[in-house]
């Protein structure tokens, strides 16, 4: 069988500039999340912290981990673990948050 081994060079090479921009955004996100933590935003403190963390993670996944140029299958595999984690947390929280409903609880 003939191996037509293509060099992997045809995989997209991100420019240094892009990496530096993403890097800047990640540092900015860190500064924002620290700053926001000191302001009382009510429930939005938790939501904002979560949104910033997810944004940072998404930037890392898309650029540093090259998922921006990956096929759909890889994207599914990126998401699936987090989806299942949400399932685990939702199912358990359903129990934790409703324990006092009928017989009274803590």
């Amino acid at each position, binding site marked *: *069988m003939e*191996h*037509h*081994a*293509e*060099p*992997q*060079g045809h*995989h997209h*090479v*991100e420019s*240094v500039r892009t*990496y*530096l921009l*993403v*890097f800047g955004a*990640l*540092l900015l996100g*860190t500064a924002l*999340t*620290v700053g926001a*933590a*000191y*302001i*009382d*935003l009510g429930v939005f*403190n*938790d939501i904002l*912290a*979560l949104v*910033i*963390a997810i944004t*940072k*993670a998404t930037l*890392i*996944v898309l*650029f*540093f*981990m*090259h998922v921006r140029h*990956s096929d759909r*299958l*890889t994207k599914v*595999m*990126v998401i*699936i*673990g*987090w989806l*299942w*984690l949400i399932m*685990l*947390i939702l199912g*358990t*929280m359903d129990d*934790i*948050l409703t324990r006092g409903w009928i017989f009274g609880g*803590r």
Partner: protein
Amino acid sequence: MSEQTLHHPANLGHHFDTLDQQHSANVLGMWVFLATEVLLFGGLFLAYFVYRTVYHDAFVEGSHHHNIVLGATNTAILIVSSLMMALAVRSAQTNNRRALVLFLALTMVFGLSFLGIKAVEYKEAFDTHQVPGALFQYEGERPELARQVEMFSLLYFAMTGTHAIHMLIGLSIVGFILYRSWRGKYNAAYYTPVELGGLYWHFIDIIWVFLFPLLYLYGRHVAVGG
């Protein structure tokens, strides 16, 4: 790159047809593995959210015990190391061996700095009796929260500890790749291990991106006495 590499790739496994197939299989395998890693940390995340819901006040108090300057510095250091890793993979893609070696070495330097700072934080926690178990002492103003603050500190150690173990594994992987890069094993035609090591390293960074606000920043705006 020699003709030989193109026609009889030495790095191609017997059961693959092309280097491309091999590369994409390896990358997919790594992503599947990272999905399991998400759920490994997931158990701890779940425990954190359950107890944070039930023991809200104690978790606010607990997160105040941790040094936000060290935590934020460490976050930045890990982001820098991730940038170094991304540039290392790029150097492999562009066939620049010297840059590859340099960036991998820098990745390790920043990774080790992270662990160094972590060690300082752990020591601080020991000195102030914030470690769970027999050494734990509650020093706040609401003694009824003692057990619950201890739970926070237990989760702090479990989560950062599991993360640190992953850092150690990541460092050994990067070290191995660094050695192989120095020996000239990787080039633009074959850099799969560099890519895989990079994926693992960035994943560890992502976990920290979530750990930092959960463990250091929760309820910072609330004044806690004691």
